[in-house]
């Protein structure tokens, strides 16, 4: 019996070591750094003080960027849900023999670098980009529309990055629904819409919430779409961390902002897990 007790741990050791060395210890470093001070030369001074956290909340500037990040993340979640549920439902209902190809198409964007996908929007939305070019040639507009370097462009970049995550989560949840339940509802006299509203939609909510959580967390931590597609005033919290760590070598303050973001996202994930269970997300990737 004793001989068997260590076996699971031995099998888990490589994974646990990876988590320990690549996640837990670096996060601990960041937490420790957040209490340190920065010397004028850029060197770090070991200390234990809360000045970096006080600085974050000292005026509304930094919290306002955090609020903007949460707002953009919520907008992204809402748009991804709206745009993602319909294709997921289509994949669930279709009996096409090409269904597997449709699913591969959802994964297709992941085969191309995220940076290149984001940069490609410049050629589509720019003043001399495809969209403005077509509209101008058709005579619909007389001068280019300002489609790039604003929050709309940032949202577009975020959606193209995160939509597959939403579709897959919802699709997995829909696939788990017993189709006979829908047939039963229909045989009892409900319309197609009623069957969807009363049966399919409630049963797909775990997948919807898992997709929402994933999209929200990934949006809150991203910095490339705002940097490439955003204009003045579109920075999100990850851009701020980047500037503090890279731009001013202020690692202690950058670490403090990271810890605050980590705390907020951790609270959201904890709350989600407590009421809905985080297992749904893992099902998507099984």
């Amino acid at each position, binding site marked *: 019996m004793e001989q068997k007790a260590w076996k699971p741990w031995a099998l888990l050791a490589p994974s646990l070591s990876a988590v320990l060395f690549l996640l837990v210890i670096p996060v601990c470093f960041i937490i420790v750094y957040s209490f340190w001070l*920065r010397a*004028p*030369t*850029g*060197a770090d001074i070991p200390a234990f003080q809360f000045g970096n956290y006080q600085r974050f909340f000292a005026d509304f*500037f930094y919290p306002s*960027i955090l609020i903007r990040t949460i707002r953009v993340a919520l907008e992204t979640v809402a748009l991804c849900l709206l745009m993602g549920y319909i294709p997921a439902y289509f994949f669930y209902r279709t009996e096409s023999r090409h269904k597997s190809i449709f699913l591969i198409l959802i994964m297709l964007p992941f085969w191309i*670098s*995220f*940076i*290149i996908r984001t*940069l490609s929007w*410049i050629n589509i939305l*720019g*003043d*001399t980009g495809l969209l403005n070019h077509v509209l101008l040639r058709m005579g619909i507009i007389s001068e280019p529309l*300002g489609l*790039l*370097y604003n929050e709309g462009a940032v949202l577009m970049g975020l959606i193209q990055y995160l939509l597959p995550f939403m579709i897959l989560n919802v699709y997995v949840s829909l696939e788990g629904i017993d189709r006979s339940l829908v047939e039963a509802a229909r045989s009892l006299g409900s319309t197609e819409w009623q069957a969807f509203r009363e049966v399919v939609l409630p049963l797909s909510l775990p997948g919807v919430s898992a997709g929402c959580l994933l999209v929200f967390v990934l949006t809150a931590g991203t910095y*490339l779409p705002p*940097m490439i597609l955003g*204009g*003045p*005033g579109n*920075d999100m919290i990850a851009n*701020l961390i*980047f*500037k503090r*760590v*890279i*731009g*001013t*070598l*202020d690692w202690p303050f950058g670490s403090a902002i990271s810890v605050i973001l980590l705390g907020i996202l951790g609270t959201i994930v904890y709350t989600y897990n407590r009421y809905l269970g985080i297992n749904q997300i893992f099902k998507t990737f099984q």
Partner: protein
Amino acid sequence: MSQELQDRLDRLYEDFTSGKISRRNFIKYLGMAGAAAGLVGGPFSMLTKAQAAETIRFDGWGGTTSEAFRKHAFDPFEKVTGVKVIDGEFGDMDTYLTRVKASFPPGGEFNLAHLSGVFDYARYVGLELDTALDESKIPNLRYVMTAMMQPYKDITDGKLSAVPYDLGQTGIAYNTKYISKEKAEKLGASLLWDKELNGKLGSWGDWRTNIWYGALHTGQNPNEIKDLDAVWDALRKQRDMVKKYWASGAELMSLLANEEIYATVAWSGRVAHLQNQGEPIAFLAPDNCYSWQECIFVLKGTDLDTAHKLLDFMLAPEAAIAVAEAQQYPPSLDPTKIEMPESVKKLPAFDPTGQLKGYLFADPAYWNGHQMEWAEKWDRIKAGA
């Protein structure tokens, strides 16, 4: 997804669009760029360190600059000495300094770096990453402009931890299809506040450059700003007219070439590249234009014998001039001591006197002393505060 990888892809795309590399090579280099990111920055750096005696690492701006160094300095150097030069790349100074600071011991795996600005030299010295070069072992140093060496010596008590290598200016690039030369010259730095260009202005995201131009617009000496509030107000006004704060040279060139913006602060060498591509972009160096000089910095812990030899190779006139022609920035060599070809004499920021009188450089003590406060303030303004 690292900033470094993005910068590398930016430069690769820029070379592809400018016709410097074929579609086939573009695809090939795309793969190599990714692999190089892993090899140079990853665990293989440990291996590099282990080979320190036979190798020396040089980190530069990549793209055409690195190609020029490789062709005109590193390859001949390797042939003569047998010492291998390992090329590293960075996208900007701040990112590189972060990597150096994060290495263990700080600066450990890095040797030589193509740093920008005397203020950067001061930052490395402030972090105790400097060393003391033996000038007698770099004979070609005698060709270098004294005016470019002195600022470094002033920081390190008469010694050098770097050799000056080239110089340039951050002036104003404007599209001649939409802005006349007369108007640009009349307005000078204030062209970047012209209301007619609302929504068609760009700027670099860098705090120092924006404050410098804010000072020029408000009629102040950038190295001794008396009315800082006026500068902040000017930058707020400008922000509302700016379409994009660009983050890399490739992005700057793309914005100008695609007519997303008609005027912006710009690096002289990048404007020269655009002009060579036939774009209708002109360069304006307003009064007290932001001038800067780049150096090859030797980091603490580097094998100095090898470093001396390589630096001397790089300062040899044939190598320095070839690099200058490729990167479109004048070399640090004194034109009164070395005859320069016409191609170099035509470059923006070239000074035939070798005295650099009238060139205004950022005072390292002044700007580094305000970095924390001003960089944060600038971030706030840029974000809409």
